[in-house]
């Protein structure tokens, strides 16, 4: 009788688990469903380390706004050189980008290769670009931990658009579906990983105040630290017009 009771409990437990176990697609949909702010303004510092030494420090102000289904972004590099970089990101087609040096006029620039390092850091352009949920296929792996949090592990392979990596493994925190870590694989090998730290909720938005991209071989890393951030501020759309740079 006692054994029967235990069996019932186990059956119920397993049934409940399988009933509520999320698939990879469901997890990523939950991640994707997290709302985005209408606008944001932040100040960040990027430190680039190579062979254990700090080699470059860059400071920049970032401003972004959603305009319809598109995103407009303006980055003002403050140190070491003063340069403005404006981007209009569109769904389903290439971005438009303009650059303005301190003294120059706004200049249209080419998008280039997303598989290249971003400002000599360990981020590739691909790492930082927006991700369309349906451009990838997902597979759930065994659960894991990242930065001390229990996470779902999801393998992600790009199925549309240019493929920079063979695959990426995302560590999605179980408690809130926030991505804590990403392992990147290229040419069949584990290349590098990204980890988010010091995650704070600012106006309800989970914001990592520190993000680290580290090479697997330990020979280099890039740390981005947000010094200040403000969401849903009033930003006039004309700020993102190339004529007003």
């Amino acid at each position, binding site marked *: 009788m006692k054994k029967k009771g235990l069996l019932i409990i186990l059956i119920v437990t397993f049934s409940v688990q399988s009933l509520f176990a999320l698939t990879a697609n469901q997890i990523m949909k939950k991640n994707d469903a*997290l709302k985005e702010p209408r606008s944001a303004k932040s100040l960040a510092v990027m430190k680039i380390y190579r062979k254990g030494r700090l080699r470059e420090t860059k400071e920049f102000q970032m401003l972004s706004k959603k305009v319809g289904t598109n995103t407009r972004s303006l980055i003002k590099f403050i140190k070491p050189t003063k340069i403005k970089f404006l981007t209009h990101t569109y769904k389903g087609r290439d971005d438009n980008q303009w650059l303005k040096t301190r003294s120059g006029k706004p200049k249209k620039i080419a998008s280039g290769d997303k598989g290249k390092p971003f400002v000599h850091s360990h981020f590739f352009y691909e790492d930082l670009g927006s991700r369309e949920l349906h451009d990838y296929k997902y597979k759930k792996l065994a659960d894991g931990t990242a930065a001390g949090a229990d996470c779902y592990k999801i393998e992600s392979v790009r199925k549309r658009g240019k493929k920079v990596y063979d695959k990426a493994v995302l560590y999605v925190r179980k408690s809130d579906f926030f991505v804590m870590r990403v392992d990147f694989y290229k040419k069949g090998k584990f290349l590098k990983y990204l980890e988010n730290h010091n995650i704070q909720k600012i106006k309800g938005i*989970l914001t990592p105040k520190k993000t680290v991209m580290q090479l697997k071989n330990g020979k280099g890393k890039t740390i981005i630290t947000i010094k200040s951030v403000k969401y849903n501020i009033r930003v*006039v759309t004309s700020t993102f017009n190339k004529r007003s740079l």
Partner: protein
Amino acid sequence: MNGISEYLKKIRFFTFVFILILALVPGSSLLAQESEDGDNEETEETEEAAQAWKISGYVESENFLMINPNRDESKGDKFFNKIENHALLDLQYGSDDLHGRGVLHGYVYPTGNSGHLSNRLLVNELYIKWLTSLFELKAGRQVIRWGTADAFNATSYFSPMDISEILFKDDDELYLGVDSLSGIVFFGDYTLQLVCMPIVTTSKLPGSGSPWEMRYPNTVIGPFSLPVSFQDADSGIDPDWKNISFGGRFSGTINSLDFSVSGYHGIDRNILLYPTIAYSGVIPTSISLSPIYKKITSFGADFAYAISDFTIQGEGAYSYNKKVVKKDIDTSVPQAQAEIKETGFINFSAGVNWLIDGEDFSVTLEYMRGDYLKNSDDYYDPFFNNLIVGSILKKFLDSSIELELRGMFNTSDRDWLIMPRAKYDFQNGFALEAEGGIFYGDEDELFGVFKSRDIVRLRAKYNF
């Protein structure tokens, strides 16, 4: 020339920087996302002051040396050694939407130096900017540069150029601010900009005594071969209401194509060099060239298109009333002077930027030319014409080392200028740079006239 590749030094370096926004601010990527459970758990929000001073700039110390051992001192060539200490201070006070901004240049030369330049302060920009969602207003001294080409902008009607020193000036020294009122109206991805310039600022040419002084071969008028000199390099233009200049530009972006159409009525930014003939009785003895300023009406268009690793750009302008100097002088008339005529004129430039290996290896090319639409043989050619401008830039060691070869080739006379450059960037704002300027051609040609004035510039620069 330095401005030609100003962008290209940075283009790839900062290409895609935008993604950081997408990454570090919410939602779209891996680095920041909004929680499902609302905003009731806010833990931190910091903000920089809405009203604040923003200060940036640079300090540089430069040594210019004309090193050509074949200089001809009988023609005015001399050993030229100039040290120039230059600081730029860029000050802004206010918010992004409403602020005042000043860009100041200070130049200091060695005490007791006998060179032609003296210590000076130049306020190149000083304006108030007010930006709203519908319009932008800028009042005061400001640099207004239109067009998409890298080197020669046919549609940049307003800001004149300071080419008192031919080489080694960065864009922020090359383009002069103009005292004007500028308004931009925003219509989505389109804009209409209107500019009124009540008082015209003129371009600067090398003055007499400058190592870059223009030298011209003797000019034959009738049976006489006359020496030519250049005068009044700094002469300006009267603040007469008749000289008020204004223009407009309609711009937009469709897919990956930027385009503009523009118009202008006012003083021609391109200086007209007028030859005044001196006479002894009825015998012409010499010619002095002096800059004069005439009105022009122009219509232009420009475009830029980015595809893959290439950006293609071009622009052109047409004027039906370009003022030109007629070559032939009627020597039968006593004390005859050159005539100024009006003609149709079209000029354009087209070029490409190619990022071969992103920020680390790039090539840029541009071609420009201008043509009088009627009787072109009767008039002196435009100062710059039929030029190919190019640059190859390669960076090493994570951009610490930059090597660049720039050049200009005059397809009409086949004379040229090449400018090799090497730079070490310490990645902390400090950089050391060496650059040369080598001229080739005959003495009556655009670059050939400087062939005995090859120059080297050494520079230490700190950006802050």
